[in-house]
Each structure stands twice: as structure tokens, then as C-alpha cells.
């Protein structure tokens, strides 16, 4: 039988629906998650299936409803809460950073907060500085949040089911460019095979998306797709790039990272988040700490060069890593 193909957004909505069917504690809330189906389609069809008691449109009150997710999770529910764009985190940061992340620890492990906070990330379509950020690094920084950043429809479903079943608070970041939305720049990888039955993708297991021998590219989310395109070009020039999709930042699959670097002796990190004090610095440090003797060159980083995301296309394309710039940086790395 032919494999069933789904977009990432439909895979996410299906994951949530299947968990709602399985577990009556699961409910959804957020802005425009009901009749609209989520601005990025992650809750499409849920209102029709489960009704407004379990699929709740909220007012624009992020502090309130994300905090309410925390409270409901503590009382034994399984809230899946949507923060429409990660950029709006500021309106709820106290609840995320000080409560959702830390209550389990502060309670000496006695209180669990099994909620999922899902949110849209990423730029590249001129939505400017307040609607284009990635910020997973910011949330991975605070102890206590699991950080999930899928790149494929298959992973999106399995990681969402895992997130809902997980006993810990999970932040789930979907990139607008991997959702397969009809109104975004088309991305063939945003549609892919997704099994109909429920399944999980475990946290903390990176996926080697392409094997290679000359350098390792560590990345996630939309940058996996760009790195694969770059690896394709590089292969034509005789450069063999291994592309690793981290899938989750917390927990992080250090083993796969280190093993790959020991094999290729060169590592580049491709990140759509800000460069300084973030994921790329963290990964570079891990490689240096755990595989320094194997490195033939210092780790290379390609990330947003510490500017907010500008609106105008030429400037935005300049700050967000592109296929060409990934390939160029890889060439520099292998010849260094």
C-alpha cells in the first residue's frame, strides 16, 4: 500500500486528536485554535471533533492562559497550549520561565507539570523583528523545560504524542516553513509519509539525515532542509557532508553528535537563532569538550549575526542562513 503523505501541520493536528481520543485529560487552548484551526493549522479540525469544551479559544491573555495551563497540568489535566508565535512569549514569560519550568524542582519532585506549550518559530518571509524569531535557545537555557523542534511531518507527529504523554513540561517549536502551509513559500519536505496509527518518537535521539565523511552539520528545524540542499550541492563538488537533525535540544543526543564529529573531524552548526549565547555556542562547546582531539579545525557557526530580524528582504535573507551560505561555510571549513 502506498504510504500516506501528510503536511507537518496536519501531522501535528492528527497527533493531538489521537491523544485526545485516547486520554480525556488532554485539552487544547490558545488564540484562534478553534474555528480558525490555529493560524498555522496545528489544531485544524479539532473543534469539529471535540467541541468547544476541549478546544478552547482564549482571549489575548498569554500570561493568564499559559499560567492556567500550568495550574491545570498540576491538577492532573494534560493541556496542550498554543502560543501563536514564540515572539509573544514576553507576555507570559514569568509563567513559562519561573513556573512551568521550575515547579517540579522547587517542589522537590513532588509536583508534576505535564503540559505542552507549542509555538510557531522562524522567519524568511518578511514578518520582521517581532514575528520571526526562533528563541528555542532561550528556553533551552532555563533548567526544567524539554525542548522539541521537529523538522519533518513524521517526527512532528511522533514527537507531539511523546510530548503529550511526557510527565514534564515540553515546549514544542514548529517552524512556519516546515508546516506545509499553502500560503508559505513551498517546501517539498514539509509533506511526507506519516503512519495513521499513533506512535512516538523518543526525546534525546538525533537523526542522521544524510551520512557523510568530510564534515558534520549539526542543525534542526527548517535548517535541516537547507543543510540537506547544501549537502546536495557540496556532493557535486566532492565534499561529503553529514547532516544531523537534533530533533530535541533538551534532552540532547550528545552521543550522536560526538560520534559523528569523531568520524568527520570537522563540525559546523547551522542555527536560525541568534548567534551569541545560544545553541551554536553550546554545541560547539560540547564538541570541544568531548572530541577536541579529533577536530582538524575549530567548530564553525552559522547563525543570525546578533541582529533582530529585519523586515526588508535583502537584509532578512542576509541574516538568516541560506543554502548558498551554508554551502560556502562548509567549503571554508573543509579547506581550513
Amino acid at each position, binding site marked *: 500500500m502506498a504510504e500516506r503523505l501528510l503536511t507537518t501541520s496536519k501531522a501535528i493536528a492528527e497527533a493531538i486528536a489521537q491523544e485526545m481520543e485516547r486520554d480525556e485529560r488532554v485539552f487544547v487552548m490558545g*488564540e*484562534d485554535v*478553534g*474555528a*480558525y484551526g490555529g*493560524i498555522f493549522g496545528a489544531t485544524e479540525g479539532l473543534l469539529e471533533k471535540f467541541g468547544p469544551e476541549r478546544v478552547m*479559544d*482564549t*482571549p*489575548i*491573555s*498569554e*500570561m*493568564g492562559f499559559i499560567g492556567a495551563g500550568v495550574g491545570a497540568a498540576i491538577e492532573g489535566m494534560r493541556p496542550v497550549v498554543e502560543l501563536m508565535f514564540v*515572539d*509573544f512569549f*514576553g*507576555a507570559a514569560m514569568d509563567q513559562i520561565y519561573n513556573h512551568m519550568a521550575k515547579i517540579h524542582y522547587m517542589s522537590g519532585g513532588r509536583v508534576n507539570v505535564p503540559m505542552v506549550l507549542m509555538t510557531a518559530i522562524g522567519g*524568511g*518571509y*518578511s*514578518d*520582521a*523583528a*517581532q*514575528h520571526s524569531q526562533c528563541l528555542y535557545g532561550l528556553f533551552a537555557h532555563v533548567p526544567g523545560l524539554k525542548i522539541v523542534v521537529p523538522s519533518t511531518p513524521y517526527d512532528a507527529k511522533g514527537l507531539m504524542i511523546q510530548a503529550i504523554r511526557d510527565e514534564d513540561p515540553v515546549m514544542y517549536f514548529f517552524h512556519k516553513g516546515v508546516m506545509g502551509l*499553502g*500560503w*508559505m*513559500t*513551498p517546501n517539498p519536505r514539509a509533506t511526507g509519509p506519516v503512519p495513521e496509527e499513533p506512535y512516538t518518537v523518543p526525546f534525546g535521539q538525533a537523526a542522521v539525515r544524510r551520512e557523510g565523511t568530510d564534515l558534520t552539520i549539526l542543525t534542526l528545524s527548517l535548517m535541516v532542509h537547507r543543510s540537506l540542499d547544501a549537502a546536495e550541492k557540496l556532493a557535486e563538488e566532492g565534499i561529503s557532508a553529514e547532516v544531523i537533525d537534533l530533533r530535541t535540544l533538551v534532552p540532547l543526543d550528545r552521543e550522536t553528535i560526538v560520534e559523528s564529529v569523531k568520524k568527520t573531524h570537522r563540525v559546523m552548526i547551522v542555527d536560525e537563532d541568534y548567534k551569541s549565547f545560544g545553541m551554536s555556542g553550546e554545541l560547539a562547546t560540547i564538541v570541544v569538550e568531548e572530541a577536541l582531539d579529533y577536530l582538524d579545525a575549530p567548530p564553525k557557526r552559522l547563525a543570525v*549575526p*546578533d*541582529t*533582530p530580524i*529585519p*523586515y*526588508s*528582504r*535583502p*537584509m*532578512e*535573507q*542576509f*541574516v538568516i542562513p541560506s543554502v548558498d551560505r551554508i554551502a560556502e561555510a562548509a567549503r571554508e571549513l573543509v579547506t581550513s
Partner: protein
Amino acid sequence: MALSKEQLLDMYRMLVKIRTFEERVGEIYYEGKLPAFDIAAGPIPGEMHLYTGQEAVATGVCAHLRPDDPVTSTHRPHGHLIAKGVDLKAMMAEIFGKKTGLCKGKGGHMHLFDPTLHFGCGGIVGGGIPHAVGAALAIKKRGEDRVAVSFFGEGAANIGAFHESLNLAAIWNLPVVFVVEDNLYAISVPKSKSTAVRSNAERGVAYGIPGVQVDGQDVIAVYEAAGEAIDRARRGGGPSIIEAICYRFRGHFEGDAEKYLPPGEKEKWRQKDPIHILGNQLKQQGWLSDEEAAAIQDEMTALVREAEMFARESPYPAPEEALEDVFVNL
């Protein structure tokens, strides 16, 4: 406060100016994006929230404002900035992402700043409300007679920043006017499902602030309510809240399928077009002929066309300019 013919015609011209600008941006927006809508493509990429239908609110309020009165706006800012008196060319160029734009292409449609007009806005709902409070605080500390105005939607009135701002403005007795544009929806969520009280004007009671509700499609009603609130603030009488009931004639953003709208609702509201309402009043008074109305439309079309040509012909910023303006000095 009987309005003179001159004042009414000025407001009529402003309504038409905003409408013409918005409708033209709405046309240009789809250039290069179709047939398969691609939000990133065309001369105006990204999200686009247009103000068509709500022009009477910006017009009636800003008619009382001076260039040095601070105004904060939202993700739907064009009308407020035009009514504040912006240079259309610089504004359009910014929307096109050009170097000659208000913000050198860094801000775009949702992030328009014009310090000469003390105007700012942004894409985070409720984000501008405390800024107006802070502007009013600065005005009060300096003993000036300026007034700060914050425009925002009824959806924004459910975010903490709104409530904290009203309380701060009240305890400090600041010269600030909060203008809630109640267009019935926050994207797809109707006010009845998001707001515990029927009127946001009533929420003023909780903070000891006078609140009034007006017909936001009727520019004269807006003008009168705003006049009272702004005069009070200028005289040191403290903050107020104005709730203008209005309607957006286009989607929340361009591309919105508006699945959430009850059938017939938009058509009903279209009958309450602010331009027609004032236009009919002027015509009844004998202050505006069909020819004069057409001439005003032609004039505004030409102004907007001129802004468009300026924007189209202006250069894009160089890619590396992205690295500038993060700090004043580093």
C-alpha cells in the same frame, strides 16, 4: 462644539486619504503572490493588516492632536499614522522595505516609527499601551501640555498590559487617552467570547477613569468624544478611555478566509461606511457636491500614486545594512 465646514471637509479628506492608501496597498500586496498565494513574495511581503472601515476612529481622534502629541499604535497602524500627518512617501517606502522608508526597511508595515510625529507601533498586542503611559509620564514630569494617545483593539483589552497601564495612568493622573477600537473580533475570536463585560468603556470604572462608548463609524461622534477626553488630559484632568465600536471591512490580515464571520454581517456593516456617513451629511448641508467629492478622491489617488512610485523607484537597503542600528554605540 459645532464643527465648521472646513473642519468637516478636512476630516472627510482624511477618511478618503486613509481609505485610498489602504485599498491601494491591498492591491499591490497581491502582486507577485498569486496564483498560489506566497506570503514571502511580491513588492510587499509579510503579513498585512489593513485599516479599511475603521478610518473614522483615527481621523476623529487625531484631528485634535498636534504633531508633538505622542501616539502609540498596533499591528494595524497605517490609519493612525496617516491621520497623524505622516509623509506618505516615506511610509509607503517602508512598507515596500526600501532604504528611503521611515525605518530604512528595518521595520515594515507593523513597525512604523516616526519620531518627528512622536509615533510608534508594533506587532505585539498591547505592547504600545504602556508606552503611551510612559510618554504621558514624561509630559507630566516636564509640565508640558501635550497629550499621549494609545490606539489598540478590543482584543488587546484582555492582556495584562492594558489593565496595568490603566491603573498606572490613574494613580499618576497622567495626560493619556486610551482608544479601544472595538471591531468585534480579535482575528477569529469574537469579543463576546473573550471579554467578560459588554463594554470596555465600563472597565474604566475599575480604575477610576472616565469611559465613553461611541459609534466608531461616525467620525463626528468620535471627534466629539475624543475632544472631551483630550481637552481634559491637556488641562491636567487625567486619563480617559474611549471605546469606538467599528468594523474592519477586510480580513484580519490579507489572505484571511474569514470562516468565522456570520453570513451577511460584513455586508450589513458595509452599509455603515464612515466615508458615506460623513459624505452624506456634508451633501445634505450643501457643503460637498458629487464633483467635489470626486475631486477629493482624485487628489488622494494622485497622492497615494506618488507615494507608490517613490517607493517602487527607491533602492533596497544593501544586505549588510542589516548589521547597523542594533545599538547607538557599541
